[in-house]
């Protein structure tokens, strides 16, 4: 076999994530995340990874497959199952100048490190002036029949902590550009990947190692006239599908992808409401005190004079995520729910 056609890094030590792109050069969301980690580790020696089963095994979802071979055990650290100390280790090393990226096998297990996240990570800089450039990442979200302890959307908990930026990307290119920004950010960042998107969505992603996406900037994913759908994460894809269907019925829905849920890009949301006067807020986090509640309140407070209908919300009830397909589908907002909600709003 000749090596002439082999991608750089793909043959020898470890597999560079770019080698995992599709034949036409597209990256899945998962590969895009791996590319971001790889490129930032190549760029900055202070960046290192820690987490459970991320080294030898390559991570529960194989995001870090090949990283140990390339970067070695000093920079790809398999840890004990001790989430408080995973966070504490990240914080302590960040105080000493490192830029740790800690993987949680599932975002659900972030609650096992809750105190170190919300008490130390979120509150330390404000009280001491010591920057904590820590990224905590992990797969969140439901819709994959993973039941109560592998499906959570913890973003409201950590958005509420006050000193942590919370990112929930919906597309591979955003995931890549935002994760790179998160690693370069001097503040704590919670990077919540959505496992439903991991291998479902692919698209071309930038090759430029310095192509970043800005944190706290939302993006209008689809222009529309009649109703604004404000959402993030996997729900962006459902909202886009609903909007496509409604276009044929003569209803024009705009879809705003928040991308970062805290601090929120209020401007993009409000500009969209000024255009359409109708807002549907869809979130996969719980309805009560969820991200959607905050977005809806912001619209009611700051775009009141532009509203032509009450702000509508679609979010799951505050329940453990159920397992049985009928229950989980009833629990999560579906395309049909979004479509109906848009129709109702546009006819209000």
């Amino acid at each position: 076999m000749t090596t002439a056609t082999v991608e750089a890094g793909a043959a020898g030590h470890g597999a560079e994530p770019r080698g995992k792109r599709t034949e036409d050069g597209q990256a899945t969301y998962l590969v895009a995340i791996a590319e971001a980690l790889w490129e930032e580790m190549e760029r900055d020696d202070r960046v290192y990874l820690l987490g459970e089963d991320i080294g030898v095994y390559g991570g529960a979802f194989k995001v870090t497959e090949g990283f140990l071979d390339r970067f070695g055990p000093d920079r790809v650290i398999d840890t004990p199952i001790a989430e408080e100390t995973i966070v504490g280790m990240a914080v302590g090393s960040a105080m000493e100048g490192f830029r740790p990226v800690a993987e949680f096998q599932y975002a659900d297990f972030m609650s096992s490190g809750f105190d170190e996240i919300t008490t130390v990570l979120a509150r330390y800089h404000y009280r001491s002036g010591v920057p904590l450039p820590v990224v905590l990442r992990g797969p969140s979200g439901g819709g994959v029949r993973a039941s109560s302890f592998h499906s959570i959307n913890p973003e409201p908990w950590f958005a509420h902590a006050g000193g942590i930026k919370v990112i929930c990307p919906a597309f591979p290119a955003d995931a890549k550009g935002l994760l790179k920004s998160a690693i370069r950010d001097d503040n704590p960042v919670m990077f919540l990947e959505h496992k439903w998107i991991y291998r479902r969505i692919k698209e071309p992603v930038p090759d430029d190692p310095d192509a970043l996406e800005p944190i706290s900037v939302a993006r209008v994913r689809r222009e529309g006239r009649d109703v604004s759908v404000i959402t993030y994460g996997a729900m962006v894809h459902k909202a886009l599908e609903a909007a496509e269907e409604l276009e044929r019925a003569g209803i024009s829905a705009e879809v705003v992808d928040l991308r970062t849920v805290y601090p929120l890009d209020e401007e993009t949301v409000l500009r969209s409401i000024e255009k359409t006067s109708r807002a549907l807020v869809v979130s996969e986090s719980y309805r009560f005190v969820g991200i959607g509640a905050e977005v809806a309140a912001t619209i009611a407070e700051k775009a009141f004079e532009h509203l032509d209908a009450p702000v509508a919300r679609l979010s799951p009830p505050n329940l453990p995520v159920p397992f049985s397909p009928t229950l989980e589908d009833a629990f999560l907002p579906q395309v049909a729910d979004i479509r109906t909600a848009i129709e109702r709003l546009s006819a209000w």
Partner: protein
Amino acid sequence: MATKVHRAAKADARPLPDERLKEILYFLKLARYFDERMEALYRQGRLPGAIYSGRGQEGTHVGVAYALEPGDSLFPTHRDLTAQLTKGLDLKRVMAQFWGRIDGYTRGRDGNSHIGDWYGAKTFTVMSHLPIAYPVAVGAAWAYKRRGEPHVAMAICGDGATSNGRWHEALNWSAVFQLPVVWVVNNNQYAYSTPNEREFPVPTIAERAAAYGMPGVRVDGTYVLEVYEAAKEAVERARQGGGPSLIESVSLRWRGHAGHDPATYVPKDLLERYMAERDPVRTYEEQLLAWGVVTKEDVAELQARIEREFEEGHEFALASPFPEPGDVTKGLWVEDGYWRSEPGRGGGTEAG
């Protein structure tokens, strides 16, 4: 590894040069005077917020912190202000912190002994959820090892915090990775009101070290030099790549958990015995007099210097402005630049 129990240093052995022995006396006496005066001001309603007295435990605090070098880091609790002062905090700024002033180490964003000085004395800004700093010390120690730096991290918690999962997580992790860290338990026999028997079912905390494959020692926290020697040994072992150690330093908490707590749950005779026979400040002072390291005049002069420093600190604190209310949201994000700039000083002052 076996648990080692230290005995008090022999009365005729001087483990340190005289000047350093005198410096230890200064920190002990400063701690005692500060603790007593701050409690008086608190009870007079002249000190806002809270106080967490470390009285009776000065031997532990000075002993462990004095074993650290400037490049080593300390992760203390609210009870361990004496250890932070020993590590190098500026008394003036400490007092400004207690009065909520802009010159406090947290710029008024926290109070009392929830204090730290990472870029100066290299101490962690204290948090209440004990032993919350233990996992963080793991990260700092890992950083030293990764970079091959000759530094050591030391974390302190109380006897009660050893019941918490993080205590075990951190000890375990540090031993797995053989990190340069010293785990100190200031066993003052009461976690708020809860005695040792309700916190752990083994005779000593030190023997738990065996379960994590690290050395563990139990020392007399009322004798500063014994504490210092044990800490020095653990610190140097860590510095040489020998991995983590556990030190249990036993004394008694003379005052309540906080300024409001009369601590009636502590048996009176136990407290009286400790105060009469095991006062870490007085016994050490008597030792130095016996050794001839200091004279009575030296001690009086030292006391006068401490009282002067306290008054200067108090004046400095009361003259320092409050933080500007308009700055309340600043300093959360790094990019707002607040912590890289001089703080606004227009917050006004008021008599304490």
